[in-house]
């Protein structure tokens, strides 16, 4: 819908009655500046990467992406991220449940700490995990330079997503629904499975999707813990970084473009899922 302000020169004949009653401020100059800012910082650079990634044609793009080390890194990244998304669905929902339905001393503190991975610099996240799960692990659990270490790092940085998407839904969930199910003869487990869970699924899916896109993009937390062994623990972002450092920006752009495509596909998928969900809801 376009506003009369945009058409300039104020021809009042075409102005709908509703717009006259509620005059809206025109976007004008502010919109121009905002678009310019967004373009200079985000859109132009990303377009250049994508362009650089595909400018040699599909064949060149494909061969850059499938060089053995990049291909291994992409496979590891996607596999580990999928695993992390699944673990997050289970643990994130469980944590959200405990935060909403349980009461214990220190709950408010735990609730606050959930967001720590968002606030903590990723390099620090990697370092703190290395202290507990590295060579000198006080638990005698050395995950440094292993794929398990990569998964732990990704679990750390993606912890809040599912918790924070499921928690508000659980809070808003009509408790009467559960009582209605009880009075209709359903036990606690049946009520959870047939009444509560279906209402949480959209939030769980969107939390898992966000965790997945974050995980495939992750760099800082895996740098120290994974040891960046090509073909073993090197994730895609680290692979791209190595190519930038060796001035191979063309293939770095190709792998970056592959990552961007996956991320956008997931986000568009999530949007579709949400729209499908809200149509019913």
């Amino acid at each position, binding site marked *: 819908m376009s506003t009369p302000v945009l058409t300039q020169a104020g021809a009042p004949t075409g102005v709908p009655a509703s717009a006259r009653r509620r005059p809206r401020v025109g*976007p004008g100059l502010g919109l121009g500046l905002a678009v310019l800012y967004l373009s200079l910082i985000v859109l132009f650079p990303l377009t250049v990467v994508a362009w650089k990634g595909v400018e040699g044609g599909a064949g060149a793009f494909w061969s850059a992406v499938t060089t053995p080390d990049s291909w291994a890194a992409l496979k590891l990244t996607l596999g580990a991220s999928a695993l992390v998304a699944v673990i997050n669905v289970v643990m994130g929902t*469980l944590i959200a449940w405990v935060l909403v339905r349980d009461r214990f001393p220190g709950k408010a503190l735990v609730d606050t700490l959930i967001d720590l991975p968002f606030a903590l610099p990723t390099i620090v996240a990697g370092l703190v995990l290395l202290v507990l799960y590295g060579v000198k692990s006080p638990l005698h659990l050395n995950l440094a330079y292993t794929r398990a270490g990569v998964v732990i790092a990704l679990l750390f940085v993606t912890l809040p997503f599912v918790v924070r998407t499921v928690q508000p839904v659980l809070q808003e969930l009509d408790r009467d629904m559960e009582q209605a199910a009880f009075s209709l003869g359903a036990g606690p487990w049946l009520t959870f499975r047939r009444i509560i869970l279906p209402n949480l699924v959209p939030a769980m899916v969107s939390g898992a999707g966000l965790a997945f896109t*974050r995980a495939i993009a992750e760099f800082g937390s895996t740098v120290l813990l994974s040891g960046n062994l090509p073909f073993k623990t090197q994730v895609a972002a680290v692979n791209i970084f190595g190519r930038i450092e060796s001035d191979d920006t063309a293939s770095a752009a190709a792998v970056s473009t592959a990552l961007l495509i996956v991320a956008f596909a997931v986000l568009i998928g999530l949007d579709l899922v949400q729209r499908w969900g809200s149509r019913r809801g």
Partner: protein
Amino acid sequence: MAKYLLRAIALLYLLFLLILPVGLIVWQTFGDGLQNVIDALTSEEAIHAFQVTLQVAIWAVVLNTVFGVGVALLLTRTNFPGKRLLNALIDLPLAVSPVVVGLALILAYGRYSTVGGWLENAGIQVIFSIPGMVLATVFVSLPLVVRAIVPVLEEMGDDQEQAARTLGAGGWQTFRRITLPGIRSALGYGIVLCLARALGEYGAVAVVSGKVVGETQTLTLFVEERYLNYEVPAAFAAATVLALLAVGSLLLTTLLRPKDGN
């Protein structure tokens, strides 16, 4: 019974993934005495890294706050073609790997790019210097202020603003006296989030800064460099500072977060 089992699982998971690691590094940092920490943090490079970090973060926060408030107002108070697209594009940076952000900026504004060439001729170096690091930091923290205040602006509606207009207030007066007080705590929340992200950015800055010790090294880069050079106490000390800043910003956001039912 099930209740205690679930609680135990949740708390153990958080303990081993989150609380023990972060607690352990703070404990190990101060384990060798406070003097070592102070020494590690007052080295010339450390102080310089602090300064660079602060400089970059402040630029990023100021720019994103102005942009954030402006765009939030555009999205909630005006109509224009392409509004949905703009709304979607705001979130774009969240889906991009920090390394890709760095690469994108190098390709767009580096010395060998067209635009970078012009800037170089004009005597402006973007990549491997502060402007590029500011760009990278702005990129990664761009949606935070917008997303913090849009819901509050939406909920507030424009009734109060229209009332102010009918009482004779101009655009700026309405913004300063009606809109701004209404979004104050949400704006504070967004700014703290943005600041925390800016202080802690590592990947994108690692790519565009060139990691020049004593010049473009930020605190996060300092942590990495010291750790890789086996100066573990210095790395731990700086990491602890960053962790404490993160915890501090968390506590601040808890205070500022729009509360339910308020």
